[in-house]
């Protein structure tokens, strides 16, 4: 990651500015436009994921030698992209950045050989799915203590456990399974498509309906020894992974909150009640003011943590606090978005109820969208 900057600065680089513009255009034309339909159908429209290839999300960080663009790992750029895409649609954006999360994690934790083996196929002209299996179906699931087990065997490792909310699992070429190595640390293992003992079931949630969120069951799934990311001293950094994932989820949600804020701002100015636009009422106006205040505060928190990550500084506390704030405030923005529209907000004709359902994911998702 790049060198430390000298001054506090919120200015985008020219490259970031240009990228943001195209991300925003794409989000508007390719995500927002199909958001409602995808939610109603509970499926990703055909061709959508392939279309995201033009954004080059997966290509950017893959080393040139492996067919990628070989750009340096940039959590800040990833966060900006996630924010812009998340404004179009939280779920579709999450699907779009899922292979990137896999790639980022392999780059951060894998050996050169592993990068070569697993990243080359992802540097493709068409959309190649790869994903990470982290969460487990428990109310008290503790990210720092996953219960999926990896047992050392003669051939490598044997994996057992159940993972949930694995995005794109059924089409993924690779699933990076985070598991507790018996007698060791929490490690990351790459399981290839169709492995024996791997079963994948698509599940639906309150939100995230357009995309595949799967329960992945591992029953004595065998992987080779070199399927474990890293080697020797350099093995999987769980804390960093959790922090980068939380930042990814937060960044996506910033975009969604922006969408809410824009929508209700317009609505409140247009909707007449008691003879005046409802925006003239302090109760409505202050809800909107608070959306703007909290959104800006969250954005700065996410940017700070991502920028620290990019500069190679410790950023776990920053990411943790950003996530605490986003879990609370994005849901507040989601529910107030519906409130401002009143009964209309509850109807699926308007998008605010969809944002409400998607934003409930922010405090729940772990291990997705690692930036």
């Amino acid at each position, binding site marked *: 990651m790049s060198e430390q900057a000298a001054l506090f600065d919120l200015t985008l680089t020219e490259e970031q500015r240009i990228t943001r513009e195209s991300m925003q255009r794409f989000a508007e034309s390719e995500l927002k436009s199909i958001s409602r339909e995808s939610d109603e159908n509970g499926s990703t429209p055909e061709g959508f994921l392939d279309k995201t290839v033009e954004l080059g999300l997966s290509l950017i960080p893959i080393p040139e030698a492996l067919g990628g663009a070989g750009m340096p790992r940039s959590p800040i750029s990833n966060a900006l992209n996630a924010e812009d895409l998340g404004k179009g649609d939280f779920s579709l954006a999450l699907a779009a950045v899922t292979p990137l999360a896999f790639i980022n994690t392999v780059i951060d934790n894998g050996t050169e050989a592993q990068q070569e083996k697993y990243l080359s196929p992802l540097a493709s002209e068409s959309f190649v799915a790869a994903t990470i299996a982290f969460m487990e179906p428990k109310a*008290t699931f503790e990210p720092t203590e996953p219960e999926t087990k990896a047992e050392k065997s003669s051939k490598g490792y044997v994996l057992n456990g159940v993972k949930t909310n694995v995005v794109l699992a059924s089409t993924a070429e690779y699933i990076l399974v985070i598991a507790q190595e018996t007698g060791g640390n929490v490690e990351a293992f790459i399981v290839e498509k169709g492995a024996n003992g791997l079963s994948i079931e698509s599940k639906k949630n309150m939100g995230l309906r357009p995309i595949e969120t799967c329960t992945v069951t591992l029953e004595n799934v065998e992987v080779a020894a070199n399927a474990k990311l890293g080697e020797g001293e350099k093995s999987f950094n769980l804390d960093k992974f959790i922090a980068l994932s939380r930042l990814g989820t937060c960044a996506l949600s910033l975009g969604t909150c922006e969408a809410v804020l824009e929508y209700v701002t317009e609505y409140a100015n247009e909707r007449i*009640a008691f003879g005046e636009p409802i925006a003239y009422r302090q109760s409505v106006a202050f809800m909107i003011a608070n959306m703007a205040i909290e959104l800006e505060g969250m954005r700065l928190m996410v940017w700070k943590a991502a920028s620290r990550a990019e500069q190679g500084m410790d950023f776990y506390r920053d990411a943790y606090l950003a996530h605490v704030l986003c879990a609370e405030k994005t849901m507040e923005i989601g529910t107030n978005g519906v*409130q401002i529209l009143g*009964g209309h907000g509850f*109807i699926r004709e308007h998008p605010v109820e969809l944002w409400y359902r998607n934003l409930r994911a922010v405090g729940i998702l772990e291990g997705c969208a690692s930036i």
Partner: protein
Amino acid sequence: MINLELSEGLKNMDQLTRGLAQGMLRPISRKYDIQEHDDIPEMEQLGGLMGGGAPGGSKKESDSESGDVMSSFLSEDGSSNEIKNGGQMTAVVTVSNIAWGCCGLMLALPGVGLGNAAIQSVATPEQKERFGRVYAGMAITEPSTGSDSSAVSTTATLDGDEWVLNGEKIFVTAGHRCNTVVVWATLDKSKGKAAIKSFVVPKGTPGMELVRLEKKMGIRASDTAAFSFNNCRIPKDNILGSAEVADTEEARKKAFGGVMQTFDNTRPMVAAMAIGVGQASIDMSKDMLSKEGVSFDYKKRLYNCSAAQAEMYRMEADIESARLLALKAGWMADNKMPNSKEASMSKAKAGRSGSHASLKAVELCQSLGYSVDNLLEKFARDSKILDIFEGTQQIQQLIVARNVLGLSSKELK
């Protein structure tokens, strides 16, 4: 004498309706959430059970004049001077339980809609007899009006022996399944609130058209209809209350106040729904967490508890508080005390607490909460409307604030 325990009669109703909700509604709750707008054969049976018969023989309880859930919306108390635990309290208890089972199905219970409450409180005996046993929806909101009930623009014009209705109505709960709609219309828009009257319009009256059913985030088992009225003619006698338009400021206020008073009865009911959904979220998330070893014993100081326990206790405290506020509003109604402020207090507290608890319960249970494999996520979709319809959180606060501060609607807008 101060006692906030339910009477024996109410306790029986409480157990009975909770059991019914658990046994009959929970098993079909998800099904009709998915099959939005489908007919619900199971509900006919349930409606019969609850509306027709007297389950558990509680009907004769001396302290509960109406053990009948259906008529509990409608019940009129006797005239004795004794303290009563009557129909409104019964309704708070039963409605919260049915909504605990499934709020969508609760709103789809055949036989009683919000229109029934209006008919019951305003119709003359002659009208009541003529209308017979109706299942009446209530049509107030119009596309361009929301919280502002006084902005009705649907018109009613007298033409010979008939009223001619013209306009559009939205958000008519049970509009599809009911057989009658009580329609709010103005006799003369220039005369403001005082000219707003309500009319009983049987379904199938020519000129009345069900335009669409809304697709909603939650309470999907309940249908929400939009109607248009094009020269829809109904008998002159189908107006509820007087056809005169008050011409003094005072009389105008009173006339509209009368129309609005229905809300004093329905708001504690919606509060009860929010309490039911909130409680359902609490119970289910506690169950899930308990299975994974989190205990709830209400012992340790809040900040010596775990974060999950503390959050749960806060949710429970809010819901208990809302429940008592709703019971109080019902108790006041049962005892002929004006309860407009208390009705709004209960709706305000219950609406926001139910919404908060249901959303928090999903978060507390992580992927289990968010998954459609469990009902928690449904509760979090259902709850939101309860902080909106029958007067949003903001409208309730306005009412309470005006009441406390002694301000008019012109002073505190």
